[in-house]
């Protein structure tokens, strides 16, 4: 019984995609996939240490560094979804009227309305910081709460604190029923694009890794069948991810 260790971000797991995507692979190859769902940073770290065979994450800068330092090989684009700016339904900063993501952020800062940041150097957090830069705002002050937690927790906090936040669409869709006080206020800006990549761990750095299985997995998620499963995966009638490997 071959086991393949996949380190991935919580969003792929929590959105319910992997439990759909992996079983056909397991049936096809006889390989058991052990999903270790952690933050992007930790997933990449596990890859660097050779503790997993393959990683599936969304943090392009970190991924490139991972590959360039020789820890990962065969990076492939898998899919993307996008980020949305969510906030209290009352929308005190009038974000709904914004023209772009950066404008939305500028409005939040200007109104001094509450904003909960992931603050955990995750892909989402990196994106958020980029947007603040684009809005030419230094996020600081009582209104800006760096929570240092996962997406789900931050959404819950925003709901309770009646604050804005940046969320990935997958988690938002999965959780929006539990967040009665929040709604999407800004979406669709190209700046909110969120790509996922799959990377096999370099067997030259870590000979013990199950490279063959990793390659098989990379092949599977980028295969026509795999991409079809990703495209057809919906939640609440909404498609969560857009496949990128096979157009």
């Amino acid at each position: 019984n071959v086991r393949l260790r996949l380190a991935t971000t919580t969003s792929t797991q929590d959105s319910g995609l992997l439990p759909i995507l992996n079983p056909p692979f397991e049936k096809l190859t006889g390989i058991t996939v052990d999903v270790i769902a952690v933050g992007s940073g930790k997933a990449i770290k596990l890859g660097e240490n050779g503790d997993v065979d393959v990683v599936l994450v969304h943090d392009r800068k970190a991924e490139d560094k991972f590959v360039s330092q020789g820890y990962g090989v065969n990076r492939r684009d898998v899919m993307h979804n996008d980020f949305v700016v969510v906030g209290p339904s009352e929308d005190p900063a009038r974000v709904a009227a914004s023209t772009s993501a950066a404008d939305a952020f500028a409005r939040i800062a200007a109104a001094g309305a509450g904003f909960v940041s992931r603050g955990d150097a995750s892909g989402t957090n990196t994106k958020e910081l980029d947007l603040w830069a684009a809005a030419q705002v230094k996020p600081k002050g009582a209104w800006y709460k760096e929570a240092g937690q996962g997406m789900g927790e931050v959404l819950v906090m925003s709901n309770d604190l009646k604050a804005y936040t940046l969320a990935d669409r997958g988690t938002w869709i999965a959780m929006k029923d539990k967040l009665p006080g929040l709604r999407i206020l800004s979406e669709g800006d190209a700046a909110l694009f969120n790509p996922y990549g799959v990377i096999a761990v370099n067997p030259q750095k870590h000979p013990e890794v199950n490279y063959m299985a990793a390659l098989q997995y990379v092949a599977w998620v980028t295969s026509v069948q795999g991409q079809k499963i990703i495209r057809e995966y919906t939640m609440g009638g909404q498609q969560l991810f857009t496949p990128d490997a096979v157009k």
Partner: protein
Amino acid sequence: MGRAFELLVSGDREVWFITWTSLRFSMSSALIACIPGIPLGVLIALRRFRGRRVLLAVLTSLMALPTVVVGLIVYSLISRAGPLGSFGILFTPRAVILGQAILALPIVVSMTASGLSSLDPLFPEVLTTLGASKREVLWMSVRQSRGAVLSASLASFGRVIGEVGVAMMLGGNIRWYTRTITTAIALETSKGEFELGLALGMVLLVMALGVNAALHWMVRHE
């Protein structure tokens, strides 16, 4: 270790802040738990009443309750949607201290009770005949078993300073506000910053050692 000292010595203001926050939260919550917990434990140890054993078993079992569950329970009370939501204490230091005190209480009570159960059964009788009231018997029992009571307090302090579930759930790990050493460790770990996590762990350990040593010293020189 090196990293930890570097962090502290280099005067990283944030590390000092979260260390102080951790200490503040856990001291407060342990203290709050001890105030009703120690007398309760003494009563359970000295009185023989119906359901005493069951109560003890429940208390010991409560020690197994994951911190995040305690967090959840308190959350469901103090969240906007909860019965105490109007106080708006969620994601504030008070919420953490409250949750941690609830977490600490069964530890204080059950360890105090089990520590005192080794007192000579004649001890309360001797005090009584010398004219001690029930309250004085209680107080003297605590003093007599102060090692056990100290252990109970320190264990509860250790439990809360080392826990992450309640602090995370109720405090929200908000930077410069409710971020403690443990929530910071969780954050750094999730970022893959394992070394920083370990270094912070060492800071916490040193702090716990300091508190332990200080309290032991105090009790010894009382």
